[in-house]
Each structure stands twice: as C-alpha cells, then as structure tokens.
C-alpha cells in the first residue's frame, strides 16, 4: 500500500490499557480547536476496524495484555502502534510490579514512542509528524545516491 496515501489520512484508535487517564486527556486535547489534528487528516474513530493507528496509553497489566494483543489482531493491516506516555513506553514507575508482566513493545511492534508523564499535546503532534516523515522517507540507498 502506498504509504503517502496512508500517512495523509491516519485514523486514530484510542486504547487505554490501564492508564491513570492523564495521557487520555492529553490525547483528546489534540482534537480540540487549539491543536486540531484534523488539519493533518487525523480523526478519532470508535471502532478498531476503521483504525490506522492504535494509540496505547498506560502500563499494561496481566488482564489487559491479552486484550491488547486481541485488539491488535482485529485491526486491519497496515496498522501502526504508538506508545503514548512513559507508562506505555517503558512501564514508568510501575516497572517490576507484580501485576505488570511485560512492556508494550515486547508483545506488539511499536512504531513510535512518545515519552512524558503525560506528554504534552505538542509532543504528541510532533511525534506523529516525525512518524509520518519517517514513513515517507525514501530508503537509505537512494538517499546516499541523492547526496553524491
């Protein structure tokens, strides 16, 4: 699939796997008139079947790890995964807790990490713009040739 078309209209599915709700609020802030991610073509969708990006917030626990895996399997591919917030990136202060089996990136292929507790909406938008640029970048060989 043409990544240029995909990156021009990323539909976001918001998936909280046990967060304290801060990252969720910051993620929703991106859709408000002040930040307005619809100008990049991003929309928040309610159904995983419509999603292009799964934005995961929170540290995964034993119960939600299974469900997160199931949700990723239900998403139509190509589908990107964004770990939003320190807990989703690296379990944060919950590392080593009895109910936290594994970090997110050990069970899913994470495409983008956005650290912060919670990350500011500016950080989330900057992260997603970086992801879009990385996907649209030509492969390494071509870049070298272009430089020469």
């Amino acid at each position: 699939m043409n990544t240029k078309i995909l990156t021009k209209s990323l539909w976001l599915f918001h998936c909280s796997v046990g967060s304290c709700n801060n990252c969720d609020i910051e993620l929703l802030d991106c859709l408000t008139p002040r930040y307005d991610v619809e100008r990049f073509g991003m929309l928040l969708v309610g159904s995983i079947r419509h999603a292009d990006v799964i934005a995961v917030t929170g540290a995964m626990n034993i119960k939600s790890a299974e469900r997160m895996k199931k949700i990723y399997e239900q998403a139509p591919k190509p589908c990107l995964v964004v770990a939003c917030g320190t807990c989703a990136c690296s379990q944060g202060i919950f590392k080593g807790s009895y109910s936290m089996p594994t970090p997110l990136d050990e069970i899913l292929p994470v495409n983008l990490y956005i650290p912060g507790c919670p990350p500011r909406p500016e950080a989330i938008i900057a992260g997603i713009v970086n992801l879009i640029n990385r996907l649209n970048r030509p492969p390494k060989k071509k870049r070298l040739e272009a430089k020469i």
Partner: protein
Amino acid sequence: MNTLFNYLIFPGFLFTSIAGLALNWIDRKLTARIQWRVGPPWYQPLFDVLKLFGKEITIPKEGKDTLFLIAPFFSLGAIVFASTLLLLPNFISSSGFAGDLIVILYLFMIPGISTILGGASSANPLASLGVSREIKLMISYELPLVLAIFTPVIKTSGIITIDGLLKYQLTNGIMLKNPSCIIAFLVAIICIQAKLGSVPFDQSEAETEIMAGAYIEYSGLPLAIFKLSKMMLTFIAPILLITVFLNGFRFDNLLATITSLIKYLILFFIYILIKLTNPRLRIDQTVKFFWSYVTVFALIGVVLALLGV
C-alpha cells in the same frame, strides 16, 4: 451507449462521486471554521477513500459474509440510479418517464436499508443496536418525507414526473410561493437531515455511544463504498428539494447557473447549521418528534394543497 454514459460518467457515478467528495470537504472545512479550527486540506475526503481501498478487508467469523460484502454496493448502486434519474431532467429537458419521482423516493430508501442489512449481518451487538435505531429512524421519517414531496404533486393536480414539475415551475413560478408548499419544504428539510443521518438524528452511528453503529465491523473497501455513497447522498439530497420546490438545478445560462448555486449553497448551509447547533436526540424522542409534530405539519400541508392553497 448514451444511457451507459449517463449512468457511469455524467450525471451518474463519476460526476456524483466527485461532487460528493468536494461537498464533503466543504462540509468538514465549514464545520471546522465554525468551531474555530483550521480543518482538513482539500484532498482529504479523496485520500480517506483511497486509503480505505488499500486496507485489509476483515469479515466477522459469525456473520453472513456474502450479504455483509454486498450491502455497500446496493447502497452505491441505488444512489447512482437515483442521481441519474434526478439530474437528467434538470440538465436535459423532457427526459425521464412517468412516475420517476416515486422511483427516486424508493431508491432514496435503499441506502438506509443496506445499512440495516450490512449491520445486521455483521453479528456485532453494537451493530445490532445501530440497526434497530436505524429501523426506528426510517419508520419515523419516511412518512412525512413522502407526504412533503407529494404536496407539490397534489398542488399541481397530479404532475408526477420531475420533468413535468420543472416545466410547471418555469411557467407558473417557483413552488415555494404557495403556503402549503412552504410547510412541506420545512418538513422536507428536517426529514432530509434524518435521512442523511446527521447530528440531531445520528443515533444509528452515534460515535460516542455505540462507536460507529452499523458500520462497526466494516473495514477497507466496503467501508469506503459506504462512505462514498453517504457523501453522494449528501450531494444529491438537497437537489431533490431544489428540483421539487425551488425551480430546478439547471445550468442553461449564466443567471440560472448563479441562482442554482446560490439555492444549493443556502440549503447546504442550513443543513450544516442544524448539524452544528443541535445535540443528539434519543431515539424515542426522535420517533415522538417525527410522529407528532412533523407528520402533523406534513398532513396540514397536504390538506392545504388539496384545498388548493
């Protein structure tokens, strides 16, 4: 050959879909500007549809997969037929056949029915909720819409072709000058709002309660077809009102072109304003609203038309 051209290219599938995509962008941009946002770029609806074409198609395991995959194409086909039948008499004089207004009203029902079929065959509990709401919505708005569209027919003592209504309006002035037709026009605006499933009446795909309602299991190509047919319906629905009540949607000369565009934009702006200034009603409130106020108003319009006002 000519018929095929009419159905597939102009004013059928290609023209209507391009106009629908453009209109969807205008809708989203105006909504964004009214909400003090920037809004998406002009190619956004096109890229949304193109992206969905390339995505994986998932089919629910317990659903009826044939019906599930065919339902969006019913919707698209009905819209293509309806738009061709509706636009041809506007562009080319004396085309159409006796009773094409009735055929168009039937074809306008099919997108709703295909939503019901597709949602019901997807075996998802939220989709079944959306389907039951869609059925109740259709039951509530169909009667007043038919009554409202038939008020001009009764007023002109039985002209039931679109071409005939347009010719009648050319000689006798627009339909809207009659009191009965003013009532019918207002009723039809509200019913069109419900038919397009936009905000006061969007219970069947209420995103904050039941996710995407009947469309919840759709992905990839079928979802794109549903989205496209909805955009095309949004383009074609105001044209039905313009044709029946407001002296047609024609581009013969400069004056007609300008007035057609102004009529269209005003109707479309009313649609967006109703959408943005109202909260979602509950489904029981919707049924009560349509069956008490709206149907009574539509009946008053019919009675006035029968009296010749």
